[in-house]
């Protein structure tokens, strides 16, 4: 039974954060502190390959939907607090803002992603509308179509090649996604024989949702409340999602675009990350069947694993450190996971990145085989 309650961790942190903001002063940092505390603690826990209890799966859905609704409540609450001049000191303003940024990313974004992949109408609708929480209702289309089809090839705008820094990736990925989203939306209205402004087009609906969402923020928080709330969403979930994409398939190579294989993704399977991120870091299962709900995802017991999630995300912002971390892992992947064809592409990618040492086997210093395999019990 405990499996179900694990996922209450996210709403719990969210509530704590709301309480902190309400208390004001230095309490506004409490949400961030709780989040970072949990993730730091997680870094010391062993990997968790367990499956979730499957008896009362509706409970999972309810918790997930609740988390989306609570995240809406949270951003509205923040806008209102800002608008009513609740944060008196600079420290409290900064604390609330920074907490919003990180909580919006770690707690707000995963259930939105989870639900827009779902088939049930109500859940999918909530997921789609929930994209207001990343202030970009268009994110879903390139994610579901382009990313899932072309993962681990340069034709996927969400993919970072070897040698790419997170900053370069962010500059490339946004225009790539916009171009792709426009192309796909246009295809849909052309196919259905509609004009671009037809109210039945998905993009019109999305734009309307965003306008309404912004309107509510404005009604609650005035100009300042709206601006800070939106900024927290853009700097938080919206941007950090790209950081997540950056690390999650970093440098891996698929020679079979359109046909995902489990070694085409990294995984983060430490226990608390799995819970907070709604298993999205347990990534192989999600790509194998993107309709599969989070509680059914099976951790890949032999899949590529990166160090703990928080650590990797922080390292990403310091490219030399990130490269130092990822290079031996990529070399290991090339040697033990890539297909012969993928290994040849990897060779060329290594040269392109100037990482020639990855093409030189070094039996003494290379990571030993089997580092990602779960020890047989």
């Amino acid at each position: 039974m405990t499996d179900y309650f694990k996922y209450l961790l996210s709403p719990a942190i969210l509530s704590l954060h709301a309480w902190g903001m309400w208390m004001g002063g230095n309490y506004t940092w409490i949400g961030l502190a709780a989040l970072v505390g949990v993730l730091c603690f997680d870094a010391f826990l062993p990997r968790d390959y367990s499956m979730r209890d499957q008896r009362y799966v509706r409970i999972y859905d309810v918790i997930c939907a609740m988390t989306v609704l609570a995240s809406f409540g949270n951003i509205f609450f923040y806008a209102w607090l800002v608008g009513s001049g609740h944060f008196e000191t600079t420290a409290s303003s900064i604390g609330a803002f920074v907490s919003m940024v990180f909580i919006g990313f770690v707690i707000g974004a995963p259930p939105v992603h989870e639900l827009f992949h779902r088939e049930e109408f109500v859940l999918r609708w909530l997921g789609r509308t929930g994209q207001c929480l990343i202030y970009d209702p268009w994110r879903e289309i390139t994610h579901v179509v382009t990313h899932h089809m072309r993962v681990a090839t340069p034709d996927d705008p969400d993919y970072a090649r070897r040698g790419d820094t997170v900053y370069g990736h962010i500059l490339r990925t946004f225009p790539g996604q916009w171009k792709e989203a426009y192309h796909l939306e246009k295809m849909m209205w052309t196919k259905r024989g509609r004009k671009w402004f037809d109210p039945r087009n998905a993009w019109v609906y999305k734009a309307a949702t965003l306008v309404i969402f912004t309107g509510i923020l404005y009604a609650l928080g005035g100009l300042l409340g709206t601006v800070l709330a939106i900024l927290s969403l853009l700097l938080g979930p919206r941007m950090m999602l790209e950081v997540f994409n950056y690390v999650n398939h970093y440098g891996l190579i698929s020679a079979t675009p359109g046909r995902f294989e489990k070694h085409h993704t990294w995984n983060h399977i430490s226990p608390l990350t799995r819970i907070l991120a709604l298993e999205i870091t347990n990534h192989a299962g999600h790509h194998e069947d993107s309709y599969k709900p989070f509680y059914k995802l099976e951790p890949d017991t032999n899949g590529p694993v990166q160090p703990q999630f928080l650590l990797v995300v922080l390292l990403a912002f310091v490219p030399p450190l990130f490269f130092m971390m990822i290079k031996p892992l990529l070399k290991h992947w090339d040697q033990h996971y890539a297909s012969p064809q993928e290994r040849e592409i990897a060779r060329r990618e290594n040269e392109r990145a100037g990482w020639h040492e990855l093409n030189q086997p070094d039996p003494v210093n290379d990571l030993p085989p089997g580092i990602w395999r779960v020890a047989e019990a």
Partner: protein
Amino acid sequence: MLKQKAPSAATRADLCRITVRGKDGSEDVFDIRRNDLLLKAAIDQGIEYPHNCRVGVCGTCKTRLISGRVSPMVDLALSPLKNAEIEAGFVLACQAKVRGDLVVEVKLGHHTMLPVTTVSARVSRWRKLPGEVIDLRLALDTPVHFHAGQYATIAESGSFTRRSYSFYDAPPMDNGAPASEVGFLVKRLPGGRFSEWLFAEDRSGTKFWMEAPFGVMGVDEYDRDGLCVAGGTGIAPILSIVADRLRRSTTAKFTIVLGVRSATDTFAEPYLRALVDQAPDRVRVVTILSHEPEGSTWAGPRGLVTEALGPELGLDFAQVSAFICGNLGMVEAVERKLIGLGVAEERIHADKFIPSGTP
């Protein structure tokens, strides 16, 4: 032909029963696991389900859903299906997750399905032909089986760029033997990532990877006369099909209608001549030019390839098998024309050269 191989881990409750109705009233039944992709699961069981790209871009696996529920992986409006087809209940089998028992309408092939393999190869011939075409031959490190009219997906070693090309060879003579060398006709597409790379310099000796065989184009009774219509390098699978059928039947006759731009686009000539030499009284070639300058010495027909199709060919359209290959617009136009001339829909076999890479 349907070997029932229930996946071992699946229990009865996990299995969905798929009933396939053909337009001719035939009915095939097989089981697949719930939540599997319809096309992939069928192919894995050795069922010859029509398909090409397997990633939702070619439309070959178009299937009419009569009853039951599937979930498409992407919005069908983003697929090659037309809006009217979507509304009429068509889905793409390669994109359809099976959610329960289904009744579908699609034409299954009844040949042996060949396993798809990935093999390494080296370029054994790289030859520029008139009309911006390259004859590319690959010597395969591991021989591969294929049927006439099928295609392969190839990529240069070390490159992410993969593209599909049809074999122009017939499968090896002795029935059942794999081919150790295969050939493709690659048209240069201005700005095209793969074809421009291939044209840039002699690629002899370059290592390639090839995944094959794909496609189900060349199926029909061997003794039927064939009407083959090709646009440009669409002639490749036609060469394969005609050469194969000339060997398998002693009576079938073939009319090949080839559309190219101008009289200088003679890339296909030696291959066609070889076919005619093989059976002079059974193979006839009509070339039609779409962009030949006025007043040139060309005495043959001019216009789009559809304009060469008509009673003047002297064929019994109700009896022929038709094989069409070329770009999407050309194939669709030819299909419409042939149906108008009385060719039976189930005897029209088409392969569309849609862009096989990603933009």
